[in-house]
């Protein structure tokens, strides 16, 4: 069998935040090691404050103060990050926020109108972020990530603080964007139904210092993911709830 280049290989031996003033140091991650296959949708779940966001920040290159190594399958991989809050530039329009993710004169700029249409923001292209709803802002953040055509897409609870129907619609939108252009995704969430509906593999972290407690594949076909009963059954199988 020919060796497959893995898009991402993560090894974090130890991550500790040093003590600041009165606050003691915080040992958040310990002995974390996993490889990611191309095109897989990896869910990372676990207790709050358990270092899930820290792990994404390390992979994104925002935090390099840790023991270990993060290796990518390609040189200078294209990484997109959808944060917990949309993190849009309030003084730039919806269109500009998406375009700024690309270098000027990039050929991918031509894809923006089509992408705007797909996320339902054509009408809002010239609006400023503060003038549109949170659900729309999150769609802008999704479009900004997908316009990059990323090799690796990091998502940190991107659909929190939305009402259920809006969150559901955004998950479907994400699945649609992802199936049009499969990419490797690392997705942090607390929501078990969301985890099963979206993921192909679930990594459960233990309480701090967090390490990988469980690594399970999700055994659902694309068609099954729209079926709430099958999603619930799989959720029971993985998380073992009544």
């Amino acid at each position: 069998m020919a060796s497959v280049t893995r898009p991402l290989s993560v090894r974090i031996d130890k991550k500790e935040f040093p003590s600041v003033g009165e606050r003691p140091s915080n040992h958040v991650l310990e002995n974390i090691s996993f490889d990611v296959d191309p095109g897989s949708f990896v869910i990372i779940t676990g207790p709050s404050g358990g270092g899930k966001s820290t792990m994404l920040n390390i992979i994104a290159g925002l935090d390099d103060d840790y023991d270990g190594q993060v290796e990518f399958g390609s040189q200078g991989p294209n990484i997109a990050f959808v944060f917990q809050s949309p993190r849009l530039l309030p003084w730039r329009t919806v269109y500009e926020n998406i375009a700024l993710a690309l270098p000027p004169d990039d050929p991918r700029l031509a894809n923006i109108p089509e992408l705007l249409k797909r996320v339902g923001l054509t009408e809002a292209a010239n609006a400023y972020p503060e003038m549109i709803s949170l659900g729309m802002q999150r769609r802008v953040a999704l479009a900004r990530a997908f316009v990059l055509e990323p090799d690796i897409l990091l998502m940190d609870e991107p659909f929190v603080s939305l009402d259920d129907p809006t969150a559901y619609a955004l998950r479907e939108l994400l699945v649609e964007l992802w199936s049009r252009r499969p990419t490797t995704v690392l997705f942090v969430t607390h929501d078990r139904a969301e985890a099963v509906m979206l993921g192909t593999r679930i990594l459960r972290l233990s309480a701090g210092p967090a390490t990988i407690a469980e690594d399970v594949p999700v055994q659902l076909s694309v068609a099954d993911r729209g079926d709430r009963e099958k999603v619930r059954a799989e959720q029971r199988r993985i998380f073992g709830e009544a």
Partner: protein
Amino acid sequence: MRQAHNAQARGPRLGRLGWSLISLLALVGLWELIALIAQSRYMPGPTEVVQVMIREAEAGELWGNIAATLIRVAFSFVVAMFIGSAIGLALGRYPMADRFFDTWLIFFLNLPALVIIVLCYIWFGLTEVAAITAVAVNKIPNVAVTMREGARSLSKDLNEMAHVYRFGWWKTLRHVTLPQLVPFFAAAARSGLALVWKIVLVVEAFGRSDGVGHQLNIAFQLFDVPMILSYALAFIIVVQIIEMAIIQPLIARATKWRR
């Protein structure tokens, strides 16, 4: 229903304009009244002051002096904003520098304007450079303090976003950092301009041979109160026009994205 709503919307706006007019008329009326009661050549009424102003404007002296003052204001304002912003941003970004230079900043903030002006003229002579330096040095600490606040409040979240999406330093400065500093810059510019207007006049009175300040100094020596008031009035009008025609539209443009 709809008409009632419209009337309500228009009411307060007309009212505000009306109030300004009434308030202004009351001020002029009070002034006229005091002048009538005082019957003194040191307390001229508004009509006389406006006449002197028109005469001075036609003779050409008024515009030349106002222009000279405006040029000094412009130069010292630009110099002070530039240097003050650079210092403020550096202090806001590097806590070590901030800890070290904080005392210096407090020293210069509390140094009386007059001391700076006198020292500048003594050290650099009665020159244009000394005049502009004196005004700028007076204003730099204020700008630095405001911009330091701005640099401290820069969003870490947006910086991380810019880093992940590989903005690079120029794109980050232009699209992420500078827009966050606009409100602080506008605040520094407005309070700074108000200060510069006043200090420029003092600098001119001390050591320049033209400008509104110089003219006021001459009028003071002659106890020519109508001249003093006519220059003051012309100056207030010019400052208001600049405020409304340049500064307010600029601020409105920079903050149009706000809800």
